């Protein structure tokens, strides 16, 4: 039955089976590496003969270097057969002798290849052994030679590498310090938290990196290199600051690739701590941790990435207002609501001693006259007389002035001096503040595309907690994040001064907020905060005054106590309105006992 059909089927199938068995056998018996081995043997004999030496013929079978302690099996020498054969110095790749004298201290049979070069040691064809392309599904492609020194640092310390031929990785490590990368990136326990921590970054698989915008091959080293070139082209919205030459970017990439998590066995490691490492001085620490944001610290700069002004922390004008206590507090605890990191041991990981050293470095140019200055602290002097509301009153002129730097929010910088001078007075009944700042244009009307000048004081409702100085934004809608704001408006002041309609109100509003868009008036028609502003010679001066004891939800002041305060100023000519303004972080009011 169906005899012919079945026999034909059997015959044809059997022929196919036979053909493919032979094909498979041929393919298996002639892998690419065997061709390389025969070619190597031919070259070897030829070169040995030319050199008049005797060729010890190599074994033609498969080669592998089995390194149990390193957890590696390297079969690279099947093709790279002449890697330790001096006769092969000028041979073609892949038969050529290894460059330099690296193999003298790192014999192939003890170190293999992939421990330095990466790639897939087990593979026996070029594409997969080199781990080229994502379709080889190998996380550690062969490292390009310009980054190869990254592997040296896996076993050697930088101190040793600096002198013995791995200068690129040592230089990269130096750049890492000098550019202040640790200002944002944590490594070995210290460093900021704005960026990704970098422990083990050199052995992370490609899947950890967003490769979408990487051009060319999607490898970790391409990612790093292109990210150093332009971080925002690789990670949109990245806050990372770079200003690197191509060479520096290469060196830093090399250093990044050296940060591997694998721990080499002790017998493979060689370190040389030639001299005990000196603890870094204040200047070094400043460069390591602060310089990326604060630069030289000599002048305040508007930062386009952070979209705010970074204060000039080494400017004498600033230092006059900031004493060590205040600086220590800010450095240790950070500034809520700004990118300023908390650098204490439990945060970014600096010791108290290191912070002290940074502060001594920062304040080395503090004017001697400022020795008494209460840093970040605005003392309110007690007087017995009535506190005047008139800005030009002599009492205000005699009061002590404190300078508070402002940072711009939501707008680009202008040439104005962004500082406010603050004076504070109190008596048994009232407390008052005089706030003075430069503003060359007087903008006192509000309309379409017309903006007014303004000033505001802000206090946390509870003194014990410090909400974000950005109107308590993000620090909780409960009492903890609530702020009390005194808002003086130049247009209302103008109406009052010119006898216009004012609804019987003063120029100051008393408000509360728990973040942007939550601002609301606190009181009815009787506003407890009174105020008066005056523009003269390109400067505004505004006095705010309130009864010492406020109502529920108002700022609280007590003799000897501390009340945090922050300041905001709007410039109408600069189209400032709402969140677009210049603000300060928290300062502290201390009514003198």
């Amino acid at each position, binding site marked *: 039955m169906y005899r012919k059909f079945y026999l034909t089927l059997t015959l044809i199938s059997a022929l196919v089976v036979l053909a493919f068995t032979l094909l498979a056998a041929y393919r298996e018996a002639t892998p690419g590496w065997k061709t390389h081995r025969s070619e190597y043997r031919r070259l070897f004999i030829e070169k040995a003969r030319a050199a008049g030496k005797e060729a010890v013929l190599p074994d033609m079978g498969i080669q592998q270097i089995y390194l149990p302690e390193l957890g590696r099996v390297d*079969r690279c020498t099947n093709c790279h057969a002449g890697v330790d054969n001096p006769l092969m110095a000028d041979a073609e790749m892949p038969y050529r002798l290894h460059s330099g004298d690296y193999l003298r201290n790192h014999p192939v049979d003890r170190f293999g290849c992939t421990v330095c070069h990466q790639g897939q040691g087990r593979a026996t064809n070029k594409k997969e052994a080199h781990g080229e392309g994502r379709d080889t599904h190998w996380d550690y492609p062969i490292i390009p030679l310009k980054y190869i020194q990254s592997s040296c640092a896996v076993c050697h310390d930088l101190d040793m590498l600096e002198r013995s031929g791995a200068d690129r990785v040592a230089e990269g490590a130096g750049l890492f310090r000098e550019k202040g990368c640790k200002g944002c990136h944590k490594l070995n326990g210290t460093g900021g938290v704005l960026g990704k921590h970098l422990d083990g970054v050199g052995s992370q698989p490609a899947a950890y990196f967003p490769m979408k915008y990487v051009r060319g091959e999607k490898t970790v080293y391409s990612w790093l290199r292109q990210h150093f070139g332009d971080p925002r082209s690789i990670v949109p919205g990245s806050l990372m600051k770079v200003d690197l030459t191509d060479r520096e970017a290469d060196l830093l990439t090399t250093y990044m690739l050296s940060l591997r998590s694998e721990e080499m066995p002790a017998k493979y490691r060689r370190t040389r701590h030639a001299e005990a490492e000196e603890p870094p001085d204040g200047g070094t620490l400043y460069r390591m941790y602060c310089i990326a944001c604060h630069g030289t610290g000599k002048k305040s700069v508007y930062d386009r990435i952070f979209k705010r002004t970074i204060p000039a922390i080494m400017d004498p004008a600033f230092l006059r207002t900031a004493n060590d206590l205040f600086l220590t507090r800010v450095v240790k605890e950070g500034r809520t609501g700004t990118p300023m990191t908390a650098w204490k041991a439990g945060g970014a990981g600096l010791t108290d001693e290191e912070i002290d050293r940074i502060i001594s470095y920062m304040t080395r140019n503090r004017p001697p006259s400022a020795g008494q200055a209460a840093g970040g602290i605005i003392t309110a002097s007690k007087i017995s007389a009535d506190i005047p509301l008139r800005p030009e009153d002599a009492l205000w002129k005699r009061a002590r002035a404190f300078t508070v730097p402002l940072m711009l929010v939501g707008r680009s910088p202008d040439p104005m001096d962004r500082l406010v001078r603050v004076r504070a007075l109190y008596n048994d009944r009232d407390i008052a503040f005089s706030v003075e700042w430069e503003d060359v244009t007087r903008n006192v009307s509000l309309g379409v595309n017309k903006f007014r000048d303004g000033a505001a004081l802000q206090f946390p409702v509870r003194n014990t907690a410090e909400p974000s100085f950005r109107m308590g934004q993000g620090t909780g809608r409960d009492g903890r994040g609530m702020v009390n704001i005194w808002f003086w408006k130049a247009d209302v002041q103008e109406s009052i001064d010119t006898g216009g309609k004012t609804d019987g109100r003063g120029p100051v509003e008393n408000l509360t907020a728990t973040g942007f868009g939550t601002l609301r008036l606190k009181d009815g028609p009787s506003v407890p905060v009174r105020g008066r502003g005056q523009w003269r010679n390109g400067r505004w001066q505004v006095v705010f005054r309130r009864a010492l004891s406020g109502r529920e939800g108002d700022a609280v002041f007590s003799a000897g106590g501390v009340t945090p305060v922050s300041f905001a100023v709007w410039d109408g000519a600069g189209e400032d309105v709402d969140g677009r303004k210049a603000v300060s972080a928290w300062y502290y009011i201390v009514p003198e006992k």
Partner: protein
Amino acid sequence: MNQPGMDKFRENLRNIKGSFAASLLRTKRPISGRSRAAVMLNNFFLHIQGVRTNVNTLRPAYTFGLGLVSLFLLFFTTVSGILLMIYYNPSTGDAYNSVKDITYVVFAGRLMRNMHKWAGEGMIIFVMLHMARVFYTGSYSRPREFNWLVGIMLLTLTFVLNLSGYMLPWDQLSYWALVIVSNIIQSSKELTDALGITPYFDIGGMAKEFFLGGTVPGKATLIRVYFLHIMLLPILLFIFLGVHFWRIRKDGGLSRPAGAVEKSVFSWPDLLRAEAAVFMLCLAGVLVYSFYVDAPLREMANPLIPENPAKAPWYFLGLQEMVSYSAFTGGIAAPALAILGLALIPYLDREEGHAGVWFSGRQGMITALQSLLAGAVVLAGLLAFVIRFGWFRNWWPDVPQILIIMVNPAGIWVAFVALWSLRVIKKTGSTRMGAIALFTMFLVSYVMFTYVGTELRGPNWEFYWMKSRWPVH
């Protein structure tokens, strides 16, 4: 020198071919009817088949050799599997490396692994096709009901064997498939959660933990899965296979049309010739496919890098698609109903006299075509609706989960299949027609759900027309 002794020795040497053949076959050359019968009866491997074979059995267009193909594929996986076992090391540290070594340095290792993989996955396809052949030729009817059940058991074992093999290379595919599968195993948790009894009776969690040997895939899981794959499941499979073959003989050989002339031929050589042809064809197919297509091997398993989408192997993606509607439905209810429905077919349709005829004639073919069309259109519509508009959770985020468990696309589809089959029974007055409708729709759902899960679902289980449109990470 003892001359007669040496003569005897020489003579024995000369006759060695004949005497070995006689000892092997236990009979003379099978050229006469008697010796042909004897050769079949007296051979351990051949005696499970009849001395004579009905001509209908040999008709290529009747069986298409599908059962035999499944058997031979099993044979190839067994042989290649034993070879792989020599090199494979079932520990989380070495499994991946040993598979790499098999690929790179073991002679023909890559080919063996490919053959093992493709023959195994081929079994899924061919066992299902074989089941379809048996079904559409009505071969499950009395007295073959029980063998149909054994067949279902073998189908299930085929699935589980494939799945357990998928885990062994311990690469990213293995690991994340394990995660998905263990979540499918855990899916009754959705129901106990909805009922609020999980803290007292967490059967899903227990099942998952039993399968994984822990709460996440790890060392214990790999050795467990390895044991299943090379020991428990193959033993069960071969036992059921033995029963399956034995029942074929006991149930009167392969089914054939009732009215057909009872004409048979000697199994030697006609049946064996057919079998040899299928064997060769099968080997050729697996060999050629394995020569060109490599079994996948991704990066080494890394619990810190989730694959997105993490997918089960393709043959379970229909279930995973349903799990995306409701874990309980996709993980427990739908597969249980499918297996139960298939198993009950021979007991709910006891019509006789239609065995051995494809589709039981014209009416059956029309019913099958109608069900195919209706099923494909309705299911495509349903899937399109779900993909375009989502389901309860997208419309009312706070809807209780129990409502989704009770009313979800998979459930609606099962209800539609049941109603459609009942309507066919009512309209045609034939339970056989109802069975044809039901089975056709089962095939439609398996193919379509699997297609959607495999090809149309991308990262976050979102819809994409093709893989090339997936967003790049």
